[in-house]
Structure formats: C-alpha cells, structure tokens
C-alpha cells in the first residue's frame, strides 16, 4: 500500500486514554470516535488534521487499555499510518487487525519533523521524507502479518481462509 501525508508528532508513552478518553467508549462508530481523537492530549488535534495525515510517535505509543476504539478513532479521524520507535503490543495488534498500517523505525521517528510530507510503501517498509529529502526503512512485516494486512484486516483474512 502507498501512503502520502503530512506528519503530526507525539511524545513517548501516549496512552489509549489520551487517544480516546473512556467517556467516549460507549460507541463503536469510527467517525464518531474520530471526532474525539487525541482529546486527552491535544484538544485541537481533530481541527488540524486532514485525511491521510500520518502520526509519528516516540516509544511505547498506545500503551494502557486494550480499547480498539483508540486505533478506530485514529482511522476514523483520517490518519493513514502510524510510525513510532516502539508500540504497546495490544495497540500494535489492534492496528494490524483493523488494517491501519503501523511501522517501527527509531531513526525515522527521531528525524522526521512535524509538518513534513511523507511517502510510504507499507509492503517494502520504505519511508521517504519528501520535505527533508531523506529515506528510512522500517522492518518488513512477517509473512503472517503481511497476509492479514493484504486482506484488509483479521476478519477478512479469516473469511478468506474459511472460504478457501
């Protein structure tokens, strides 16, 4: 998958309560969740973002609660990809399972600045910073995860397997 978008940067240890506070967990609608995305950390975030924008985070992004509402709210708000030094594991698997591209690259996460425009190829793991004219590599997904991502998420992957 090819992605092009503008970067918003976040600090280390952003937790899922910050991404979507618990008071909004009584809905499952991605668009509705997207309207409150990042409300616990940056109230104006949703006003500043455009569809296909990219989040570049520090380490342990998405820690805390297992709420899938967190990646859903990011997806609902129009975020197309998340790059970070590292991710909390439940958040990571939730992104894979709902088909939201997520990439680990320490160098990219450190060098890329807010406002930069990125060109990303999720299959090869190539991250191009168009603004800074630099290129980074994230580790390629293991075969197993590539299959899930290729199908657009875990449910589609399972459906395909049951049919085939």
């Amino acid at each position: 998958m090819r992605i092009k978008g503008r970067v918003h940067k976040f600090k280390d240890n952003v937790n899922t309560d910050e991404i979507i506070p618990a008071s909004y967990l009584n809905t499952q609608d991605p668009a509705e969740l997207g309207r409150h995305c990042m409300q616990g950390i940056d109230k104006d975030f949703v006003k500043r973002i455009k569809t296909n924008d990219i989040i570049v985070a520090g380490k342990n992004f998405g820690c805390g609660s297992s709420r899938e509402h967190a990646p859903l709210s990011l997806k609902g708000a129009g975020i197309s990809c998340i790059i970070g030094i590292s991710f909390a594991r439940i958040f990571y698997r939730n992104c894979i399972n709902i088909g939201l591209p997520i990439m680990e690259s320490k160098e990219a996460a450190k060098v890329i600045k807010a406002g930069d425009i990125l060109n990303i190829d999720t299959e090869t793991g190539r991250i191009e910073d168009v603004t800074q004219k630099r290129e980074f590599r994230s580790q390629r997904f293991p075969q197993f995860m590539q299959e899930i991502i290729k199908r657009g998420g875990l449910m589609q992957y399972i459906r395909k397997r049951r049919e085939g």
Partner: protein
Amino acid sequence: MASTITEKILAAHTEKRSVEPGEFIEAKVDLALGNDITAPLAIKEFERSGVKRVFDNKRIALIPDHFTPNKDLKSANQCKILKNFASKHKIKHYYEVGRMGVEHALLPELGLVLPGDLVIGADSHTCTYGALGAFSTGVGSTDLAAAFITGKCWFRVPESMRFVFRGRLNRWVGGKDLILYTIGDIGVDGALYKAMEFTGDAINKLPMDDRFSMCNMAIEAGGKSGIIEPDGITKGYTGSKRTKIYKSDKDARYSDIIEYDVKKIEPQVATPHLPSNAKPVSKIKNVRVDQAVIGSCTNGRISDLRSAARILKGKKAKSSVRLIVIPATQKIYLEAVKEGLAEIFVKAGGVFSTPTCGPCLGGHMGILAEGETAIATTNRNFVGRMGHTGSKVYLSNPAVAAASAIKGRIAHPEEVL
C-alpha cells in the same frame, strides 16, 4: 529443549512440541472474554462475518462490568448488545448485574481459569490470571471476534523476563507494592512484548490475592503477560479441580533476570501520570487528597478490603475526603458484609458500592473534577484517567489508601495506628 512455563503452555495449545520466542503461532484458547466496552465491537464484527455459530458457547465469557449498573443510555445499549448475543448463542458465562463482578476477580473466583489454561480477553488486564499459572493476555475486539469464530488467536511467542524477589516482606507491603516497585525500576515499557515471570522465596509465600495484583499490572510495564508457577498456594485456591501444572525448566532462556531484595521495599505510591513513578510512601510529603478509591481488578479482593478495614476500624475519613470502597465481586461483597467490613467502611464515612470498574477508568461512581486529587488502589494514573484532564491519581495499596483517607493527605498506615 529447555522452555519457560509460558513457552510450555503456548506449545500445549498448538500442534507443536515446543515453541520459541519470536515465532508466530496460532493457538487454541480455553476461554475468550469480553466486557461491555469491548464485546459490542467484537459482536458487531462477528455478525458482519456472516458466521452463524460461535466456536463453543461454554468457552466465552461476557461480563458487563465497566459502566454497570448502566450509567447512561449509551451504556445501557452496549450492555443490551451483550445480553442479546448471550441469549442468542446460549453463552454459558454471561453474568448480569447482581451476579457479575469485576471480570478479572470474577473469572478466577468462579473457577473458570485454571493453571495451564490459555485465556484471551478484550481487556488489557486479562494478564491477571497468570497468578494461577495460566497464560493470559489482553487482546483487541477484532481478536475476540476472530476467537468467537475459530476458537484460536495468533501470537508472537514472547521472550520471558525472570524477576526474583528474595527475602521477607516488610509490614504493609504486598503484591501491589512489589509490582509498583518493579514497574518503577524497569519503566512502563520495560517488559514490552515480554512475559514477566515472578519467582523467589518472597513469591513462594505470597498469598493468592497479592499474586493477582502483581500479574494484573504486568501490562503497566508493557508486558504481554505476568506469570507465577503454580504451587501449594495455587492449589489451595483452585481446590480439587483437575489442572495442568507447567513449570519452567532450570536451564530455560530469559532475556533478563532481575533480582530484588524485598527487605528494602516499603509501601509504594506511583505519582501522576505514569505507574512507573513509584516512590516509597514516606517520600510523599503533603499531597492532599479529595478522594480515596479502594477496589478494582487490581485490589478489590477480600484481603484488600480486610487490609483497608484494619486501618479504618473505629476511625473516620477526613470530612473533606470522599472514601469509595468497591468490592470486586458479589461474593466478596457478601463476605465483607458478614465479616463486618462493610460496617467499618460506612461508619468511617465511606461509600460501599456494588461491584463495578466505575471510577478506575473515569466511567462513573467517583469522577474527579478539575484540580482534584485521588489516591486509588487501581492500576493507572494517566492524565484524565479518573475524570478531568486537570485531575490527578496516585496509585497505592489498600492500607495506604485507607490511611490517606483518614489523614486527608497521602499517609503511611503506621501514621494512623
């Protein structure tokens, strides 16, 4: 090949004889859990898949515990989704308000998780059951939906970290303090993707409720799971039920081995806004509290309530403090009533509530206003976790929370006795 308890349990749930860290596996689950926040999303995905039947209606647990008793219309609708699904698929382990409890206290109490089991739950604190020598871990709603269909879940086999706790615990120090101290040492991502195995002579003597508190918070260090090898104490808890006991081989491989001398550990308090900000309670000076919460999947068990009651007996919470005590299950509630603990809490000027996760995640039953501070026996002190983003949460064990309620500021239990 030498294996850890975690690797053995995972392998036993696949067709493989052994598994290695880093390997991707698909494993059978013994139990799949969802609650009123995460299960509606899983149910929606399940129904969208067009599959008519769940893999096994006796291996799914649906527990409405987060916003229950229903706090508002939206929460009521969420719970109705669980109720309808449970009825349609004849889900055996669905527990209605009045019979339910905080999921991670309830499932072990009902004997639904046993040593050697593999349990997934769409709730991050599912790692609690490692206290029984089971592999259990939090997953997302889509994972849960997939398990509803296939009875399986995908995992990357985690590396294990071994934590050895040596020595005799100081007075007022329990499982909560050991885990806060550990998270304080390794950080909130110190065990990222890893299994945290707790061992040592201090763990061998640690009561079951304290073991639950420890494994419960493995996730706060980024851990995939927390686990303690089953022993006589585990057996005393599970009773005569048939269990599969796994233990780590002597030469099993660990990514890290960390030893602690528990004699050096005093009751811990984690200051805002990370569980890793753990400090000895004696170092916390002049922190006034507006609210003290005793309960949750971390510390809402009977021994937690007994510990708080020992401090509060015959005393009053300071008039400016809201003391909220929440037993984690109906059984614990009834025990607390029979033992006279409920009376101690009410006479101390406290609230004694029906089981709910409620205030822990800022749901209901004790939301903080802007500028307010709580001491809580819960598991997270993130920004806005218990209410307004301008409020603060300090984490502690039940005795410290009770002493702090009396003093109106964070206090050591010895200060009030």
